């Protein structure tokens, strides 16, 4: 931001919000990465850490909400400042959900630990989470530099994750059909995959929010979607 407010305390309020958002982003990223690592390695201790970290993320979201309300009440923000504050509230909510999805994945570690995760599926999940984490990392970088172009580019890319999720979905179905004893762990893994796919959606939400913060306009057109997992196995006879 090139110019500063006449009230320097106002700048401090806004800086507080963006610093907290960045911190939340860093923690959410770490939680997702650790949850997937815990899942693949059957590491219950790491899973437990992810579950307890979620409390910090929830707290940070509430703190951002409170600070945003107070800033609106005290400063009556206008234009870019107003968009900045509303954007912070929305992004904090998305990041909090990302943390929840990481936590949910971590919770399933214990359930699948007994059977273990087949090597091939583990690689699929890792790959899916890499895509989602790249998306999340990039969107957090864009948050730092507020580039509308880059935000739009990230939004365009969500269908890579969707496609990967669809292929994992098919694979899990195959495992379940091969041996009904796989159904319990495969169902948990399916939820994990869905969780990770959702993280991509939240990254896209954040990209759209950043686009709005930077330009004051809503991004144009529908977001690209590859929803074919929704219809996989819909047998038409």
């Amino acid at each position: 931001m090139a110019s500063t407010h006449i009230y320097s305390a106002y700048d401090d309020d806004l800086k507080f919000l963006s610093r907290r958002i960045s911190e939340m982003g860093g923690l959410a990223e770490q939680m997702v990465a650790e949850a997937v690592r815990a899942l693949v390695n059957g590491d219950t201790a790491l899973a437990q850490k992810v579950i307890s970290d979620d409390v910090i993320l929830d707290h940070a979201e509430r703190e951002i909400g409170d600070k945003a309300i107070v800033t609106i009440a005290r400063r009556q923000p206008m234009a870019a400042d107003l968009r900045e504050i509303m954007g912070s509230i929305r992004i904090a909510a998305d990041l909090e959900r990302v943390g929840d999805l990481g936590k949910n994945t971590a919770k399933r570690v214990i359930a699948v630990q007994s059977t273990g995760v087949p090597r091939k599926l583990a690689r699929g999940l890792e790959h899916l989470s890499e895509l989602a984490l790249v998306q999340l990392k990039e969107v957090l970088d864009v948050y730092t530099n507020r580039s509308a172009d880059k935000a739009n580019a990230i939004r365009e890319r969500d269908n890579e994750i969707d496609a990967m999720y669809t292929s994992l979905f098919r694979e899990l179905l195959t495992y379940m059909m091969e041996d009904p004893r796989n159904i319990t762990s495969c169902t948990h893994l399916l939820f994990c995959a869905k969780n990770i796919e959702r993280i991509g959606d939240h990254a896209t939400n954040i990209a759209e929010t950043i686009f709005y913060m930077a330009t004051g306009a809503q991004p144009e057109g529908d977001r690209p979607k590859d929803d074919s997992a929704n219809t996989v196995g819909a047998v038409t006879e």
Partner: protein
Amino acid sequence: MNMLTEAAVEKALDHKMSNVPYKMIGKDVSVYYGEKRALFDVNLNIRENTVTALIGPSGCGKSTFLRSLNRMNDTIDGCRVTGKITLDTDDIYDPDIDVVELRARVGMVFQKPNPFPKTIYENVSYGPRIHGLAKSKADLDQIVETSLQRAGLWNEVKDRVHESGTGLSGGQQQRLCIARAVAVSPEVILMDEPCSALDPIATAKVEELIHELRENYTIVIVTHSMQQAARVSQRTAMFHLGNLVEENDTDKMFTNPDDPRTQDYIMGRFG
């Protein structure tokens, strides 16, 4: 039930003012105070039945522009206005125009409430009387009552209209001045920081009044309060150093202005 149909959404989003006709047109308006030039070729049109807010830092020319809309600048020695301002189709700087009649059509409310040191009744009836708008005493009584009602003051003063206007509170005095302006059935009402001497409650009443008056009148208001401009107006014009920087729908102006100077000003930043 109002369903969330595409048409309903379109309608809700369609708050653009671009179809509203112009009541006053300002073309290349420049104002000089002696050697000093206060306004630089301002092109600003005022839409009918719309509240237009003029904002900008002190000395930006917003009050000067406002005062040129009913030739209040004529009263200042050495003041010269160039360019053209029309009210409907009439050039208001035409030498043949009757300035007294112009100011009846384009009324004004000032920063400090300035009722005449007379009764409430006389304050409101003065204009209609000198303009010959009332045929009888009953007519005049009616105009006074209607004007006070329109100014939202009637219920508070109906039992004491023959008491002095200066005995009212500041907010009531300001609404009395609005009633006085309304009494001569103007087409346009100019307001120069009408709430800057009022407390928040009196301000809210005057703002509510501005909102209601918009149905029957075209209103131009100068204000230093950005929040007030955002609350009461549909169009906002931003002035800076004697230039019109930007004019836009108020909704756009306060969420996503086009000009960086507007942005800096409304956000309270250093330019």
